[in-house]
């Protein structure tokens, strides 16, 4: 008649685990599955599986991490089974190497600085140039595809990307020389 209260994962613990492991798991999964959506779905399924597991909350942190990696691996294998494919050996999870690189504070600091610096430079570009750069690099669309998407000529898109890259090159060179004049004149 009596019911026992299930051990639930504390939200702050879940957030810590997610912050620590989700980027690594996502990158590993992305290397193994072709679809970005599949990778995102697997990431969600892995952490939801942890929430739904009756024993996960009672595991040690190390065991919780190992558990999450195992579930991620199994989800990837499921994807391959559904597609009748097999992940190549070189694509298998190698969380130890990821751990080494990503947990090095100096490496993280340099990476963040570079990203912040580039974000600052991109932020100085006109909005349309920022948009086409996003479509070219983030969505990996070719100029013809971007042109179709934004309703412009391909030549216009090429010109926009060309101007954007030249400006970024110019900003970068000026910063390297110690200059602070980022004039935005065409």
């Amino acid at each position, binding site marked *: *008649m*009596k*019911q026992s*209260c*299930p051990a*639930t*994962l*504390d*939200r*702050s613990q*879940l*957030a810590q685990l*997610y912050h620590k492991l*989700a*980027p690594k798991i*996502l*990158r590993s999964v992305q290397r193994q599955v072709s679809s*970005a959506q599949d*990778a*995102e779905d697997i*990431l*969600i399924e892995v*952490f*939801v599986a942890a*929430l*739904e597991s009756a024993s996960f909350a009672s595991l040690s942190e190390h065991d919780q991490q190992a558990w999450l990696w195992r579930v991620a691996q199994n989800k990837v294998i499921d994807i391959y089974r559904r597609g009748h494919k097999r992940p190549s050996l070189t694509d298998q999870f190698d969380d130890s190497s990821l751990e080494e690189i990503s947990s090095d504070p100096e490496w993280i600091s340099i990476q963040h600085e*570079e*990203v912040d610096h*580039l*974000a600052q430079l*991109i932020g100085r570009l006109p909005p349309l140039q920022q948009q086409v*750069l*996003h479509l*070219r*690099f*983030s969505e*990996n669309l*070719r*100029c013809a595809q971007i042109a179709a998407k934004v309703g412009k000529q391909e*030549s216009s898109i*090429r*010109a926009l*990307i*060309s101007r954007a*890259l*030249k400006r*970024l*090159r110019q900003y*970068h060179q000026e910063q390297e020389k110690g200059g602070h004049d980022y004039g935005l004149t065409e």
Partner: protein
Amino acid sequence: MGLQSDPFHPEQVDEYIENVTQNVQTRAPKQEQDIQLVQRLQVYYAKRKEEDILERAWKQIVQRYEKATFISSENAQKFVECSQQERLLPMKQAIEADTLSMPSQGKLSLTQRIGLFAALLLIVLLVGSLAVMLTMSHTNHLAPSVAVSHSSASPFQSITLSDSINQTNPASSMSSFTVGQPVWFVCTLNVQVTGFNTLTVKWYENGSLVATNTSGQRGTPHLAANVALSHTFTVPGNGEVEVLWNGQLVKTLTFSVKA
């Protein structure tokens, strides 16, 4: 710069980016900086895309987490209801046993009927007085700062914050918690509450809304229904709980969260 010397020239910029992406060997060493720029952009946008994915995924996971927490709090509520039912079970069994052992109504004499009526009346009085005693016991244990007046307008008999819940004893009221410690919101509904109602509890950390729990609550006319919802604070400071009944704010509780 001419067409051949500037890789960012409009006529070849798209192909140049593609070549760098595919790691195809480019022409001159002096283009090294341009290759680096394209590679940095690729890393930058890949990182932003990854952050977007992580944020989207986290939102979905949190939704599932809140759903799981809600089910868990419903379980906590079932504990209380089960224990109340267990307390009343012997009485019900006694009534059922009496009923089963009774001869058919048609054969009862007037004296037997009066005796049966008196027995039933006594049982009803006993159950009623037990419920009143339990209610008084709950109220006496509440801290004055969080006890809710027993007016007919308030749906709550009591509201309290505690670090734990107990299915048999009332939760001890607390106004100070620590980071990582679960803060339990425990309330007992008034016996007059009937029909389907919603109870919403909003949790604030230093003035910012951090979590919302909503619970559907069916009123139980003769038994006080208990609801328990919890949240764990991640930063020290001031905590606040807003209690809404059917969307209307009825109570605000404040407490401190220490490191």
